[in-house]
């Protein structure tokens, strides 16, 4: 497998930025959309949690993911703990695989991210199936594919505030 061509030297992340990005993702998830977009809409909160678990494992981990899972459960009206369970499992996988994923180039990250999100969704679906005996259909998993496709863009956006400004004194 190819590894990332060059490791950039980035500024440290501000904790405020992490919180802001997570809350914006939560807002995006609350945004009411049409029924068609609803099916391919990625789970933004899960994406952001995954990103921060991979890049800032000391700041965002299983606990944060669990708390956001509870918030999503209340907002979406799902069973209490359904998303919390899935998100904490996702965070754990991300923490285990994070060195591997962060070394990969962005197109190889696609497969890893999509798979991790698919596992997360499978946990949600399985919980729903066990607790309420409903299967939602395979289209539900489309969201993870969209999330995988959006991953490079997300990575670029979130790294923007970390890029060092060009030094004006340099000749």
């Amino acid at each position, binding site marked *: 497998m190819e590894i990332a061509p060059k490791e950039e030297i980035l500024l440290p992340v501000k904790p405020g930025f992490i919180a802001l990005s997570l809350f914006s993702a939560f807002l995006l*998830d609350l*945004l009411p959309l049409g029924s068609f977009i609803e099916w391919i809409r990625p789970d933004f909160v899960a994406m952001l949690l995954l990103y921060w678990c991979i890049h800032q494992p000391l700041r965002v981990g299983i606990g944060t993911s669990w708390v956001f899972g509870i918030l999503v459960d209340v907002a979406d009206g*799902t069973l209490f703990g359904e998303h919390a*369970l899935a998100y*904490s499992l996702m965070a754990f996988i991300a923490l285990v695989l994070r060195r591997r994923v962060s070394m990969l180039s962005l197109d190889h990250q696609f497969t890893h991210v999509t798979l991790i999100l698919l596992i997360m969704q499978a946990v949600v679906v399985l919980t729903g199936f066990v607790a309420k005996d409903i299967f939602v259909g395979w289209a539900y998993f489309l969201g993870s594919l969209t999330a995988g496709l959006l991953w490079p863009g997300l990575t670029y956006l979130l790294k923007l505030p970390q890029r060092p400004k060009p030094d004006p004194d340099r000749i």
Partner: protein
Amino acid sequence: MEHELFSRGPSPAVRLTFFILLSLLLLVSDVHYSYLKTLRAGIATAIYPLQRIAMMPVELLGAIGDYTQAQSSLIKENAILQKQNLEDREALLRYRALQQENDHLRQLFGAKARVDAPSVMAEILYDERDPFSRKVIVDKGLQAHVIAGSAVIDNAGVIGQVLQVYPFSSEISLITDKDHPTPVQVLRNGLRAIVFGFGSSNLLDLKYMSLNTDIRPGDLLVTSGLDGTFPAGLPVATVLTVDKNPVYAFSRITCKPAAGVNRYRQVLILAPGSPPPPIPAAKPEPSPVRGKK
């Protein structure tokens, strides 16, 4: 401990186990008990401002759309509405006369009059994203005296009923929600039945009707009012297809909801009427039934 300097608390596996156990505890208590209602309502109130913020772009787009809408279409719509209004008014007059007559007849029979339930107008904030259920959130809650269990209707018929009430919003379970039962009556012949939601599609399932039941496509189903939740006589659905396959014990009857279950933004929440009298307790030993005459 040799790694004291770099201690980061418990290992990820320990944390994961803790949070998985916590989630399972919450899940089980949510499915089987209702201890967590208040906690849930508290969190819902806390995220309500965020939900309103998320609604803003949509409302703004709607406002811009309204503003730029051509005047001609408004005039056209106005004409249609006026015509509708006239027709409705005429129907209302007849309805009033009938109601008076009905009240009078009921008084003669000594029966209790049907009370017009007070109602609250509410607006649908958003569909819940839970693909396992069909629920919507509306913008009226405890502050508007909404009561859990109230029926929710639009201008064409029943939409669903209030499931949970939060301080500023409430959760409505649609009649198309999986296994949401609605007691109905066939308008044509007064036959009583129960429709259930399919969950996945916007259709309803009329269950437990034997093969020789007199029911045809096009029949209108109205609420029977037997459950004490929905007032009687509200349109619920029209029968789409009737499949009388002798292989099955019951006919498979599919119905289409009368109300725009996922079309309109404005809905009406009806306060529940008086609850039905309790079901008489079963006798300990059922005596053999003999001819009653």
